[in-house]
């Protein structure tokens, strides 16, 4: 370094650095935008309708609403169709067929006819032979609120129906300087509860989370804000009748003695159907914003309020409402719960699905002092139908059947396990 002092070298370096590295002196940024979208799979109406029949049984992926007809369980797989389960031996139920009904969320049964929604349409199916289910009638466009989601609406494409949504995990890389966050909404297609339920019919029984129910030769369905009436005097030929505006955020419907108990996120409505074609509001019980499946007996309505997700609110409880004056139902007692969903009553036994706390069984002989008899705490239960000493329970991981002949020692009879997705 003789003749070229180090300090001079450093000085030159200081001058040279910005020049030499000018292209490298930069704040580079790459943005990876990772999101999920669901791509619709379309089929023509003819293809869809041709496939509404007893197809090969499928594994249960998401247990939905349930309806029991004699020894047969009809279990809805939300948006996909209906599992037909031979329950002749409750200890060994057999999944025997699957009826493909895209967009199906609710079911109800009268005699040998099963009613199901197919997005905006109502389908009447002959189920006299569960192994050979046939379409009897399709009533089009009666559930206009049933949009597909993701901006897709049936009206956009009348000839095609979305049969499923394929999940796509996607990552897009872009320069950070190209703009800020692009809002991609993830698409859970239907935000409505995919919990279970069902409906009562002359020979069938459903749960407390149903949106379809049958009474007096009428099929009553609730949408987000309407109550629709279908005349099913001729079961195979449902005829759409009145539509009654009920309120907002309607969730469930439960029939009892000429009255329909309609659960909404803000209260319970009682509609009298003495004239079956013209439901008339008889009373209303308001509560805080929450989801509220409801059942009723001669004297009381049992309303479970829960918070979370679509339900919002912070209330988790069982409200017992006295019905001696239907025009003015009065709150009698409140029981705190964890996250109650569906419920069922058989005699003095009250069954409540309390979310992750499992299925709770109470002695409800005295509603002012419910006695917890037993808890099946190992399941995440969300609806139950209790009849003939068997509690058919829909949980996240499967369809359970419990023998409650001895309510203190409830015994698991069987479980149909949900298949991993």
């Amino acid at each position, binding site marked *: 370094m003789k003749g070229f002092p180090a300090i001079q070298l450093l000085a030159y370096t200081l001058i040279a650095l910005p020049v030499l590295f000018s292209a490298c002196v930069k704040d580079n940024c790459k943005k990876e935008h990772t999101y999920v979208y669901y791509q619709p799979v379309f089929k023509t109406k003819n293809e869809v309708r041709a496939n509404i029949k007893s197809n090969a049984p499928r594994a249960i992926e998401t247990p939905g609403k349930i309806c029991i007809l004699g020894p047969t369980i009809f279990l809805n797989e939300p948006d996909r169709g209906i599992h037909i389960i031979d329950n002749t031996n409750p200890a060994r139920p057999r999944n025997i067929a699957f009826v493909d009904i895209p967009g199906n969320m609710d079911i109800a049964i009268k005699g040998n006819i099963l009613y199901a929604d197919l997005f905006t349409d109502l389908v009447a199916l002959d189920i006299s032979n569960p192994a050979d289910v046939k379409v009897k009638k399709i009533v089009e466009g009666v559930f206009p609120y049933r949009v597909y989601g993701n901006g897709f609406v049936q009206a956009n494409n009348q000839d095609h129906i979305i049969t499923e949504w394929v999940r796509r995990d996607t990552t897009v890389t872009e320069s950070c300087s190209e703009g800020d966050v692009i809002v991609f909404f993830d698409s859970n297609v239907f*935000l409505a509860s995919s919990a279970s339920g069902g409906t009562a019919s002359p020979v069938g029984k459903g749960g407390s989370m149903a949106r379809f129910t049958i009474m007096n030769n009428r099929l009553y369905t609730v949408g987000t804000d309407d109550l629709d009436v279908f005349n099913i005097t001729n079961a195979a030929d449902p005829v759409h009748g009145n539509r009654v505006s009920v309120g907002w955020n309607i969730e469930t419907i439960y029939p009892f003695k000429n009255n329909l108990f309609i659960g909404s996120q803000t209260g319970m409505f009682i509609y009298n159907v003495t004239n079956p074609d013209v439901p008339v509001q008889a009373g209303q019980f308001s509560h805080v914003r929450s989801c509220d499946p409801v059942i009723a007996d001669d004297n009381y309505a049992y309303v479970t309020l829960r918070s979370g997700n679509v339900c919002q609110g912070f209330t988790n409880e069982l409200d017992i409402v006295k019905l001696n004056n239907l025009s003015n139902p009065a709150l009698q007692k409140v029981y705190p719960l964890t996250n109650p969903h569906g419920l069922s009553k058989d005699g003095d036994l009250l069954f409540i699905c309390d979310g992750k706390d499992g299925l709770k069984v109470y002695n409800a002989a005295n509603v002012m002092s419910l006695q917890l008899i037993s808890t099946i705490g190992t399941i995440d239960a969300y609806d139950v139908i209790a009849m003939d000493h068997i509690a058919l329970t829909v949980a996240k991981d499967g369809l359970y059947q419990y023998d409650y002949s001895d309510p203190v020692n409830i015994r698991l009879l069987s479980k149909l396990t949900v298949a991993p997705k």
Partner: protein
Amino acid sequence: MRIIILALLLPVVAIAQKEKNAAVGWRVNAASGVITGESAAKPLYQFSGGITYARFFSGIGIGYDKYRFNTIPVFADWRMDVDHSRQTYLYVQPGYGFTAGNNPEEPEYGRVADRLKGGFSLDAGIGYRLAVGKRNGFLLSAGYGLKYMVHEKTYLYCATCDTDPVTDTYRYRFGRILLKAGWEFGSRGR
């Protein structure tokens, strides 16, 4: 830890094999400086220590780098004197910058998680040493540096719905010029 120390010594030992009559010494360095780049200039602080052998120094160091995001770089510090008077040296400091002390961003609609992750860092350049007595020296250096960072933000645009999150991952590479002034203290290998 022993593996790291051996790895740090390896270049010194390997290169110094050619040096005859060399002796091992030790040295610590403290420096502060400024980082300039496309964004506003920010301060930098460093401290390192290691061994010297002939013309070589190998050590480990830790610093505080406030450019764009605050990071604590932990680095290897390799230096080589390039002239016989030992005034001029080249250095390279590869390491990993850990994030530290960054203020959370302003709330954004739907954002449910906000994570900063550190990454590779590098500083390489040339320095000038002004000896002060036998054991001390005043240091000036200039170099080019890289700093990698990852900023990950997760959004749930509908908190009450059962929806999948959306994640934005920002991968940064900052190319900067680092100007440092410092002080060294220690013994020098012959």
